[in-house]
């Protein structure tokens, strides 16, 4: 059962002076629980595809269904609701709110969804603990290293227990050691919670743990390699 279905997706930007075709008809399905890596060179459209799947942007044509909800024609506010409930997102540049502490950053999605603050705070602390940052809860992003910031971002992404986790070059700004740690955490959390993980990267080494690698070039899927069937037992 596909948790993400994309049909004939296109994304064209008309600036008035020229036309940019970022995606040119992408068909794409992700079964629940799968770890998919989307690869491609810079300008291939991979981040745009991820953004469309996450409801961060709207396609020019085509359709997208996320966990049974057709998000194609939804208004911005309805998309926000879908994002808040179904999608956890990890960005390349962490995108933490600099004026909030680590704990407050993790708590934010819970607050936005109207959850109970006391319960949320406990959960946020638990998540920070699980990423090894229990002693940094009151630190502001500027007081954390890149790796630590990305771990906070990870904890935040899991706060509302979303069925889908999307990551855009999550280790792109990190050194190999920190990058490795973050990837391990991503995968560990993914396995533990059973979430579907869609990860965009240009780094082949990150794809070795993926169940499936989708390669884009010039806005089209040129390769779709299943490494291991979805749901197969893992060591």
């Amino acid at each position, binding site marked *: 059962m596909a948790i993400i279905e994309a049909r004939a997706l296109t994304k064209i930007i008309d600036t008035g002076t020229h036309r940019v075709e970022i995606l040119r008809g992408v068909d794409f399905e992700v079964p629940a629980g799968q770890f998919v890596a989307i690869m491609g060179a810079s300008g291939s459209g991979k981040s745009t595809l991820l953004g469309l799947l996450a409801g961060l942007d709207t396609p020019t044509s085509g359709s997208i269904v996320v966990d049974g909800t057709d998000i194609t024609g939804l208004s911005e506010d309805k998309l*926000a609701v879908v*994002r808040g409930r179904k999608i956890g997102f990890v*960005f390349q540049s962490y995108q933490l709110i600099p*004026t909030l502490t680590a704990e407050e950053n993790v708590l934010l999605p819970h607050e936005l969804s109207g959850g109970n603050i006391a319960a949320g705070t406990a959960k946020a602390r638990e998540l920070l603990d699980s990423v090894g940052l229990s002693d940094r809860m009151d630190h502001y992003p500027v007081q954390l290293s890149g790796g630590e910031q990305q771990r906070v971002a990870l904890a935040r992404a899991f706060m509302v227990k979303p069925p889908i986790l999307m990551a855009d070059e999550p280790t792109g700004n990190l050194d190999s050691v920190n990058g490795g740690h973050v990837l391990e955490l991503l995968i560990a959390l993914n396995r533990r919670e059973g979430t579907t993980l869609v990860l965009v990267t240009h780094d082949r080494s990150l794809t070795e743990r993926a169940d499936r690698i989708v390669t884009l070039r010039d806005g089209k899927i040129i390769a779709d390699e299943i490494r291991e069937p979805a749901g197969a037992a893992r060591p």
Partner: protein
Amino acid sequence: MNLSLRTAARIAWRETRSSMVKFLFVVLAVAAGVGALSGVRGFSESFHGMLTAEARTVMAGDLLARQFVMPSAQQTAALDALAARGVDYTWVTETVSMAASKSNDGTPVLAALKVVDPSKYPYYGEMKLNPPMPLASALTPDTAVAGDDLLMRLNAKVGDTVRVGEKDLHIVATIAQEPDRMSASLNIGLRLMMSREAFASTGLMQIGSRAAERYLFKLEPNAPPVDEVRRSIRRALPEAMVTDFRQSHPIITEGLDQATTYLSLISLIALIVGAIGVGMAMHAHLQQKMDHIAVMKSLGATSKEIIRIYTIQTLMLGVMGGLAGVAVGRGVEEVFPLLIKKYFSLNATMGWHVTAAVQGIGIGVLTTLLFTLPPLLAIRKIRPALILRRDMPEAKLSWKRRLTDARSALAAGGAILIGIGAIAAWLAGSARVGGYFAGGLTTSLIALACVAWLLLRLVRSFLEGTRWRIPSLMRQGLANLYRQGNQAQAILVALGLGVMFTLTVYMVQDSLVAQIIETAPPDAPNVFLVGVTQAQVGALKELIAHQQGVLGAPTFVPRVASRLVSVNGEVPVGPRFRYAGNVMWEGEKPDYVRVVEGAWWNSSALQKGAAPVVSVGVETAKRLKIHPGDTIEMEASGKRFQARVVALHEWEQRRFMPTSSFVFNPPGLADLPVSFDGGVRVEPSLVAAFQRAAFEKFPTVTVVNIADALQIAQQVVDQIALVIRFLSGFAILAGAIILAASIAGTRFRRVREVVILKTLGGTKRHIVRIFSVEFLTLGVVAGLMGGILATLFSGIVLRRLLNAQFQFDPKAALSAIVLTALLANASGWLASFRILRQKPLEVLREE
């Protein structure tokens, strides 16, 4: 919406707390506006109170009823009934009679008698006597007090006896200060003041005797409102002319009305300028927060929820700024009385007006919210995809889509204008003022937006198409104006509005103060010469020209004693419709006369033998039901003559010379007995010497010294002028600060730009030149546009709202352009100079 108010407030507070330094400017901008508003309004209320106290002093009461007949028993009973409701009254009789000194054989003179009840009179102000003593002690059944001028004419002194009618009165003091001198009914001639008992024993008050009865009323705390009391007095005394303290003296009334309207306007302007600053600051703040807002949207926050958070933040800032502003306003209220005391030896008592403070905070918050609406609504347009691709090309939307998107912006704009208009109307107490204000703001916004758009297009076209060799740094500076992400259009509009309002304050106050000073000009006559014959005019002018202490040439006004016989052949019935007094002539229409209806005569009416034509004062015309085209018949010294009414007029400027409700062409009053009243300004300390010199050569001419009475009016006018200047300066300063900060708020955008330029080899000198071109261009254009709009707006405000003259001041407009350019450059660099020291990698690493 999932986000509760409480959670939104918590998020808003978290963000504010961590950015307090950045928000300081926003708070200060609101504080400046609210401070000006609450300070001006609070001060205006106190000042208004002071001036109305002065006005009451000039009237010596709260209300005044004046008639020329004794009250009937019924009328007295009606007044007593009013007294029982808290409206105390006293009665002043003014008449003329001969008075002679019993101590020498001097000629009797015609004295102006004033009869008062010293236990009540005056209700306000103080009677100062020389030697000092309470009025109640000075006015007994056998004693009186006299003006210096009367004693001089009688060749008498304090301690002498003066015979009036059948009574000998012992003069115990001279009058040094008389509060209601300018409210006197009859000619302010040689004064003799006595008690009612003393007057009764003179035997002068017979049936048919001509005396002016002036009733002074004082409102006790439990009394009904002024307007209701006024109506009751009118019913009790239908023949009387009733006025209240608000109309005690034209100088004070006019000055007060204009000052109050103006001060309300400038306080609103100060607030608008403050709010513009807030709007710009919030706009800059939200621009910086775009990434955060995109992140929150990607985490599931809807636009409405995010708008709620930032609206709460805006409210918090508005309240903080409002409270700070009230404190500033309080400071203004504390400082100013010290100034007044220093310059005017007056004890100005100011109270802290809670209502003004609360109003100030309320309006400050409301205006802040209104001006923050556009950037708040723009939150809806922030796309979450922004954080994936900062430099994703912007799709060009269809015009339909753009119109749909613009709907909310237009709605926000409409809400702001309606809101500002409503606040202006409320502050000024006039829907007309609110309408003009909102209209002026709308027009300015549209004009500025159009100019900004046109300028940017022109600059772009010029740079792209010109064959001239423009230095690259200048080219880059100009190109910065129209490149994507620059807020040049918004800055131009905000700056232009700020300049417009600030310059309007300056231009209006300059014209207004000049006009107000005109109402009691420093060279106004303070000595009147009454009863000058035609034969004496020349010789008197000669004496004045050689007299020590005379400050300026004298003015002489012709007076012909006459009465109105009929209007269009019908004899007026009832005392209200009678007129008997002095009429005068004028040649060409004087500058100080404004024709309200009809038209002044031309030069043919000045020719010898021309038919009599007349212009009638508009109030008298209303009372006597006279219109242009009517024919009136007058009688003067037994001779009857007719004149056609050609115009109705009002006196535009306050004249210190006698005026008349009936002004004829010179041939109209030819061959009639005429006397002249003159006025001259004399150094106050030399007035007595002038009086003696004049009396010696012209014993029949009455010389009246009103220097002390004029002093009050002069002081009031000077106070008003000072208040206006002080508070205008305050508003102008606030405006300058806020303009500076608007430019400064753009510094965040420049950080990245500076860093990239440095990376590519740009030196500090290069960078300074590039940005200076940008700042100076913005400043010059904003100054120019603001100057043009200020000139238009000032003209409208002065002519339509303040009934004052407007004179264009090119120096002020030019200075505005230069100063704005310099200010824009200075403030831009003051805020940005630290950026020059920023290491490129520090910034780039964060990307």
